[in-house]
């Protein structure tokens, strides 16, 4: 069965974006620094169409999170633009330009129906207005037996987590304190929803925590 896998970078104090998020500064104040550990990596640069780069302890983690993914689901806030109905006068086509780095079908959760958006490089955004389970089902079908990546943001991730639909969660814990901003685990309650810590990989720039669903025979 194809898995739903979630990966995100989080500050030590629990934030996935800094305060004052805007169209000009989508990750908020200090938020870009949550991802700086990945930028020099060859594995990350290749994904975004650049050459060269480092190979270090984070390489296997990045390669693993990108491997065997056939489709992505993401929330409206991650796709970005503006809240509310889509504005045909100012079409918002995502943050990622003409050739987004997904190269597979992406399903965007929204309350507002919209025609699919086909971009270069194999990325098509399909807008799903009938809930998280419908979006996941569509993504699973599109993934053709591969896994589905849960792209975020925090709100969409929280909904899938609470519904018990997340099979794997990779948190890259970044050594910085943001003090305020968008919290990853806001309003998901006090339960890891069946996930347990299965691996810690410590590197000087970031600590990778892998959580996975307890296997069915393993009750504790």
């Amino acid at each position, binding site marked *: 069965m194809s898995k739903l896998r979630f990966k995100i970078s989080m500050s030590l*104090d629990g934030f996935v974006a800094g*305060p004052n998020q805007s169209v000009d500064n989508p990750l908020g104040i200090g938020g870009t620094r949550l991802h700086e550990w990945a930028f020099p990596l060859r594995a990350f640069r290749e994904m975004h169409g650049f050459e060269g780069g480092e190979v270090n302890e984070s390489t296997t983690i990045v390669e693993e999170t990108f491997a065997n993914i056939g489709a992505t689901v993401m929330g409206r806030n991650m796709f970005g633009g503006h809240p509310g109905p889509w504005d045909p006068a100012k079409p918002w086509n995502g943050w990622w330009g003409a050739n987004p780095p997904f190269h597979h079908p992406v399903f965007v959760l929204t309350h507002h129906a919209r025609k699919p958006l086909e971009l270069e490089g194999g990325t098509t955004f399909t807008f799903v207005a009938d809930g998280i389970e419908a979006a996941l089902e569509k993504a699973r079908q599109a993934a053709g037996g591969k896994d589905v990546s849960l792209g975020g943001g925090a709100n969409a991730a929280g909904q899938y987590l609470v519904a018990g639909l997340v099979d794997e969660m990779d948190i890259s814990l970044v050594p*910085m304190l943001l*003090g305020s901003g968008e*919290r990853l*685990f806001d309003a*998901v309650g006090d339960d890891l929803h069946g996930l347990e*810590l299965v691996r810690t990989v410590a590197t000087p720039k970031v*600590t990778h925590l892998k959580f996975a669903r307890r296997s069915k025979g393993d009750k504790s």
Partner: protein
Amino acid sequence: VSATAKEQAGTTTTGKVVWHATMSLDGFIAGPGDAMDWVFKHDSGPNAEVDEVLRTLGAVLVGRRSYDVGQRAQRPEMRKVYGGAWTGPQFVLTHAAPPTPPDKTITFLSGDIRTSVDTALRAAKGKNVVLIGANIARQCVEAGLVDEVLVHVAPVLLGDGIRFFDHRGAAPVDLEQITATQSGQVMNLRYRVVR
């Protein structure tokens, strides 16, 4: 750290100021109603990082709320700092000191944060000062007084409670990882504060 304490200590070395906390994965150091039971539930037994803290500890500086939560603990040993595994000078920062401290190792302080840290560092006689409590730690971070952060991350979500670092409007604080180890399901993360 504190220039004043360092100058006055002359050639003797001054200890470090270490912010030590156990945190849930979602960033809380206490649950709703100051609940701390989850910490003991996730205690994974002997921990070399904690042993090291105790070995190098000269004094603790505790916030009033953390102190009060400790005093209310059901098990008597839990009313003591580190469950009684360490004894030494404890300084409690408060605006309203009780008339008599319950214990001669406890001193109530009401001055500003720099003076309080200086007082604790002097009492520590070259060993480290550990900060206990979110509010006091935030004040020390803001004043640039924290040298290291040691945080044990428990694989639990609390959903609500006292946040590890709640500081609206603050500039991001950069940390440099010193060590990261795992004890059972608990991660021990030690950082240097970049200033």
